[in-house]
């Protein structure tokens, strides 16, 4: 069986390399993708895209050679060399440019993590195994060998963060649908951010904004109103702007405001007719 598993490696690696080359060769975003990788630092910004495409070309060449008959020892040796190269590049990019995308497979951008290393390691192991094969993958492998290789493919998928959106995210969405982890938030009282959001969209705010000198300084609730105060100046005198905002309803037009002199407590400004916005 081991011989058959080894034979099938050419199929697995070949398919992986062809997929990997796709994102490096096809589409209008290749250049942008290339510049997000550590290649930018390695070969310079100008040469990042040609280098990225060259790697894609080599991947496509080796991948196609592995997939197509005849079986050559050279193919698996080239795959081994390529995986060693990947591991070296990943180490470099982890050290030199940790925030960059690995630019590894497909068209998604993904940072270099332990999963990236795991996949490159698995690729190397598969390539070494492939070099021991003495028959082609097209030579009718048995069911047990196919099962082993399916597990291997699943391992590749699990280690590819680029594919998460196809299996991991749907699983997580399902979990959220079943467990409703944030459902309790709906029951809570009105957050101040809600009040502020409404306040900033009101005519009252627009009417006195030029007098305000701070962000929200104090706030308190009374019945259906929430009061919010700001530091203000009026005629160069220190003052306070106080807004009354409907607490439980979204009615920006009902928001009222007054400017109160800080020293004598007099209300110096209270627009009774707020301007209607265009």
């Amino acid at each position, binding site marked *: 069986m081991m011989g058959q598993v080894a034979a099938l490696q050419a199929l697995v690696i070949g398919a992986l390399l062809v997929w990997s080359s796709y994102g490096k060769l096809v589409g*209008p975003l290749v250049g*942008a993708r290339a*510049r997000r990788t550590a290649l930018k630092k390695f070969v310079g910004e100008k040469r990042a895209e040609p280098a990225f495409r060259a790697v894609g070309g080599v991947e496509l060449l080796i991948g196609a050679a592995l997939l197509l008959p005849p079986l050559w020892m050279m193919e698996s040796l080239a795959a081994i060399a390529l995986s060693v190269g990947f591991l070296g590049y990943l180490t470099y990019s982890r050290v030199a440019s940790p*925030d960059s995308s690995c630019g590894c497979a497909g068209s998604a951008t993904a940072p270099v993590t332990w999963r990236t290393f795991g996949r490159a390691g698995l690729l190397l192991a598969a390539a070494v195994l492939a070099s021991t094969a003495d028959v082609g993958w097209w030579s009718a492998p048995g069911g047990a060998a196919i099962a082993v290789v399916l597990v291997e493919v699943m391992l590749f998928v699990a280690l590819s963060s680029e594919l998460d959106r196809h299996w991991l995210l749907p699983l997580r969405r399902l979990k959220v649908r079943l467990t409703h982890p944030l459902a309790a938030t709906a029951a809570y009282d009105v957050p101040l951010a809600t009040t502020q*959001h409404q306040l*900033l*969209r009101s005519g009252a705010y627009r009417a006195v*904004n030029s007098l305000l000198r701070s962000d929200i300084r104090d706030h308190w609730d009374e019945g259906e109103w929430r009061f919010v105060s700001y530091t203000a100046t009026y005629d160069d005198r220190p003052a306070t702007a106080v807004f009354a905002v409907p607490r439980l309803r979204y009615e920006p037009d009902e928001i009222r405001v007054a400017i109160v002199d800080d020293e004598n407590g007099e209300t110096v400004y209270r627009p009774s007719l707020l301007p*209607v916005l265009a």
Partner: protein
Amino acid sequence: MAGLRGEVSWFCCGNAWGPCGTAGHGACGTCNSGSWQHAWTNTSDACYAITRPDRCGITGVSRRTCGFRHATTNLCNGARVVTTIADCGPQTDLFCGERACCGGTCASNRVIDLTPAAFSAIGSLNAGLIPCNVEAG
């Protein structure tokens, strides 16, 4: 260019603390949170390929390069700030169709990102997202 109406937010750049720490000095190499600067969606082909305002139906965002001046007006209060281009952004296509209104005035889609210094001159940082008008300044 006629005024571009849309949403404005803020971003940090240059040396910074917290999750902003790795932001860098932006596409122009000059961006700093404390300066009056902004990010623009069309500073180069490579930039436009990432921001893609056309995917939200905004066509004709002019190609403007580092240092170009834009005036951004907060439609909720009329406050205005003039800033220069220092980075590429925001990623308009990630938030297509999003709308912000003040009174009867509404604006859709993210068209500009200001530095904290510039944004706080026309609105509250914790307000996050504001409808605005952008013109060549």
